[in-house]
């Protein structure tokens, strides 16, 4: 069964700031120069809420790819931060249940979609959603699953998380059974509960990141009986380029195979990086039919995830 990522669209806010501007307004914890050394330059900041971005990404996907809403069998909504999972939350207790996934279903007429939200895998949210969608399609008669992710940082929040520059944004991915591209060949997800406390375990998480990443990447490739040298591209999450250079060094993958253009241009769009990068790499003609693509991600929680796709 060929389950693939058939279509991807994303939305970025209109406001873009460079590191110098962000430093001037106190939005960074590390110096702009240091973050520039780590590969960052721009961050996108939204005045629109996460649902607004999610709705625009969903609309773009359905319209550009001529998808009939009623043929969507499932909707998985992912958000890394809690505020992404409620709309217009107020003092009224019930407003906490104003879920964006439910409203997306209504607004876009996804009448046949089973709806669920994914909220506790941090930046792994969209990858978790895509895997849930693939499993959903594999388990039954469903044909199409829509995954949407959106996150918007609070207005006065810092734009940096553990030396990574954060952007707001949204992404929508159509996962299709018997699709035509981006076939999911292998997937692996590891959760390590020891690191649940992001504040107390901050340093251990940084240290654990690399060996766990190496293991999960090797395991994913082994599941697909694929060697490192068969990979055409590594499609990253947009954490610092420096950390990617270290990880690639650990794995013995050349830096030329990392699609890293968006690290500087966009920054880390929390849960959606891998899929935004996949779309851009394809649109820019970097990927050929049959290319094997490695997508790796980490999300607080603490989650490491890896996918092997065949374009």
């Amino acid at each position, binding site marked *: 069964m060929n389950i693939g990522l058939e279509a991807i669209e994303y939305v970025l806010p209109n406001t873009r700031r460079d590191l110098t501007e962000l430093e001037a307004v106190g939005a960074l914890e590390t110096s702009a120069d240091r973050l520039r*050394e780590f590969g960052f330059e721009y961050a996108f900041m939204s005045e629109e809420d996460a649902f607004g971005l999610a709705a625009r990404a969903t609309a773009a996907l359905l319209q550009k790819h001529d998808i009939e809403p009623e043929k969507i069998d499932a909707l998985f909504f992912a958000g890394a931060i809690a505020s992404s999972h409620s709309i217009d939350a107020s003092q009224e207790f019930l407003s906490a249940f104003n879920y964006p996934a439910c409203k997306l279903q209504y607004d876009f007429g996804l009448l046949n979609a089973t709806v669920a939200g994914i909220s506790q895998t941090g930046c792994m949210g969209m990858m978790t959603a895509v895997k849930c969608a693939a499993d959903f399609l594999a388990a039954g008669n469903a044909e199409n699953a829509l995954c949407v992710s959106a996150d918007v940082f609070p207005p006065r929040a810092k734009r940096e998380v553990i030396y990574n520059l954060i952007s707001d944004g949204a992404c929508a991915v159509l996962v299709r059974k018997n699709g035509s591209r981006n076939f999911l060949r292998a997937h692996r997800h590891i959760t*390590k509960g020891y690191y649940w406390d992001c504040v107390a375990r901050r340093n251990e998480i940084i240290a*654990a990141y690399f*060996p766990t990443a190496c*293991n999960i990447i090797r395991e994913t490739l082994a599941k697909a009986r694929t060697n490192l040298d068969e990979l055409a591209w590594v499609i990253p999450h947009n954490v610092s380029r420096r950390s990617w250079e270290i990880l690639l060094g650990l794995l013995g993958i050349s830096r030329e195979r990392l699609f890293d253009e968006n690290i500087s241009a966009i920054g880390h769009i929390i849960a959606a990086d891998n899929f935004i990068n996949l779309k851009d790499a394809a649109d820019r003609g970097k990927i050929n039919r049959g290319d094997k693509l490695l997508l790796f991600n980490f999300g607080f929680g603490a989650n490491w995830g890896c996918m092997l796709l065949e374009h």
Partner: protein
Amino acid sequence: MILLVTGASGAFGQGIVRALVDCDDIEKIYALGRRNGLDFTSSKIEFVAADITSKLTIPDKIRRELTAILHAAAETRFSAPLDAARRVNVDGLANIVDVASRCPRLNRFGCLSTIYVAGKRTGRISENELEHMAGFVNGYEQSKFEAEQFLHRKAAHLPVTIYRLSTIFGDSRTGEVVKAGAIHQALRFFYHSFLPMVPGTAKSLVDLVSSDYAIAAVGRLLCDQFEPGKTFHVCAASDAIPLGELLNAARECFLHNRPEWRKRAIEMPELVELETFELFVQSVEEIGSPALQQSVNATKYFAPQLAYPKTFDDSDCARALAGSAVERPVLRDFFPRVVKYLINENWRGPLDDTSPCERI
């Protein structure tokens, strides 16, 4: 024999003094050190307060009766800047050699060194080799190399033997670690999820030796098998363990002695090329996180040595000790004992206030 031991207040010095005091051939031991923290009760031992980095003034009475010197004082911190290491390991040696040159009855001068005077050399390292241009991983290695050069050039008139010690891991019988060094710190950081990578390959050999063997071997070679002009490797030699096996053994010890450690799901450190390790070290230094910096410091001054694979030949040492009661304990046998000791002793102290690692 009337013996002067320098560095007698250090971990190895105390051990050797304690071991030699019961030796019938030794009439007197002058234990030279910076501080008298020694708890020896034997009347054979007399403490002499001195700092070898200063011009030494050993009383004439002592100088005239000395028949042997064992120079154990050293700056052994791998992180010590080269100048600081030289001040103790080369200049301090020169001061002791000056004293030795003025001891009329002296018939043996033993000097402790390190097998890592081999620096960045690779391959098989013989006991009779010193000179090389391969460079060094840290200032400690270089200063001890220069100290050996000094002995060859400036102390040819003395009956000198050099004992190159390997990294002392712990007591093979009890597991006790008197002084935690870089290797113990590295294992500690592995245990606490702070050791993401180590330079080297799974096959890189790690040469560790037990403290009881090192003390007994040096004692025997100095007192009973003294061979002026020789250099001995007191090391694991063919018993050295490949790095991959050593890390696996450590992990097994963690799991065996603290079954709940499994819940942390801590990964084995990645074994990496030096270039990637150095990029990680650079990144940690740029980030400036004290806890991460501490963990990197535990490895960056010695772990690069693993990227220069080598084996140490100890044929002369083995020959000299043959037939004696001194046998080298098998590293694979006592390694778990030492790791257990470290775990039970909470690695001899809390990790760091900036990283609230739980004790398990």
